[in-house]
């Protein structure tokens, strides 16, 4: 295809500037690298199979980071009740992105949140995410610093709550009063209308405010 940036008569197109431009050479190099790696791995696996052994990807243990604890909860509840469409052949057993909890780094799907969390703790996943599974031992100074930090955080939260509490309390009281006033007005108006209407028909009806509420049938 001819140069896509130019229009039919050679003028530069200005309304296609939003389109992303791809650096072809970079992606070419990347694809070549991946292909070479795959071929190497395939060859190594084949050779190991001939010997009757299994080939493991070499892991450089010294470059792995230390593991630390989780900062927040694992998100398992966000997709509850939602329906997603998944291609039928996208997962064979655990491998591949199928229905359930998917782990990006290892390309595995788990049907259960417990299995998923167990996987997140497993050696396979830790190595795939570049962690070593070793935790640094804490010294007394670490513990002291942590206590200080937690105390700080607690003070800040208390102050915030105190501040929020004062303002909101007055506003909250006023708001509830306003709401009640409005409800009372509404009910009064409706009752007056009903009375006027039913007075014309000659039938007096009870205030229907309590009907349906708490299962009360008049």
């Amino acid at each position, binding site marked *: 295809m001819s140069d896509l940036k130019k229009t039919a008569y050679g003028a530069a197109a200005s309304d296609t500037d939003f389109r992303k431009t791809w650096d072809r050479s970079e992606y070419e190099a990347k694809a070549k690298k991946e292909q070479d790696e795959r071929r190497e791995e395939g060859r190594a696996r084949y050779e190991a199979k001939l010997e009757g052994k299994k080939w493991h990807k070499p892991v450089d243990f010294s470059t792995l980071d230390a593991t630390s604890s989780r900062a927040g909860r694992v998100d398992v509840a966000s997709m509850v009740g939602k329906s997603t469409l998944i291609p039928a052949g996208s997962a064979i057993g655990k491998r591949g992105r199928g229905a359930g909890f998917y782990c990006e780094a290892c390309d595995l799907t788990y049907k259960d949140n417990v299995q998923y969390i167990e996987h997140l703790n497993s050696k396979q996943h830790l190595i795939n995410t570049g962690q070593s599974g070793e935790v640094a031992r*804490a010294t007394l100074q670490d513990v002291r610093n*942590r206590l200080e930090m937690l105390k700080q955080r607690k003070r800040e939260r208390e102050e915030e709550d105190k501040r929020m509490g004062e303002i909101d309390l007055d506003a909250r009281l006023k708001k509830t009063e306003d709401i009640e006033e409005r409800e009372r007005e509404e009910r009064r108006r409706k009752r007056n209308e009903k009375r006027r209407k039913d007075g014309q028909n000659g039938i007096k009806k009870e205030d229907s405010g309590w009907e349906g509420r708490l299962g009360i049938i008049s």
Partner: protein
Amino acid sequence: MTHRADASSSLDNRGYTGPLIRGANPITLIETAVRDRITESLYWKEQCFGLNAATLLDRAVDLSYIGGTYGVGMRPTPFLCLAFKLLTLTPEKEIVLEYLNMGGEEWKYLRALAAFYVRLTFEPVDIYTTLEPFLTDARKLRRRRKEGYVLVHMDEFIDELLTKDRSCATSLWKLPGRQQLEDLDMLEERVSPLQAELDEMEQDEDGDPHNGSEGGASPVVRSSSSEG
């Protein structure tokens, strides 16, 4: 210095090379059934993975009740899971004392957790000397029992640790009585903080000495020691 993120090195007893408590793997202080419940619980898998003595504080300050196991299926409480984590970590004595004293001032459940750990792992003399000052701490704790929650006080809990056989789903190892240690001259006689009050009471009563213990705060008072 590092240790494994999960407790796998201490859970399997066969190759255990870590620190020993009274000659055994520290986690054997908790019974196998309870141990299995703990390691299979979601709290352990999600929150207790990769903790060290410092990051454990993040979890400990979020505790809101003490307890062993609850419910029909013997589910472990976060308190018990963290106590088990402490056993697998076996932090140094200063760190535990830091938890008890500095941390415990601010967070009572942290103090309860550290006290439980002290009761399980320290030497008898150290247990008495470390835990007795906290018999004056009267803060309230929420305890989760099999069917529901109960109210206990910190001093009640510490007294339970010092005198009873079982607490929080673990059988506490046999602690020699205070009398024994005093007779062996390893401990000094205990002077109760309420001794002054008791003496006053005895004087007021005009010759009616054994009036029983006053107030619920220190049941370890021995009413026969009017000589102090």
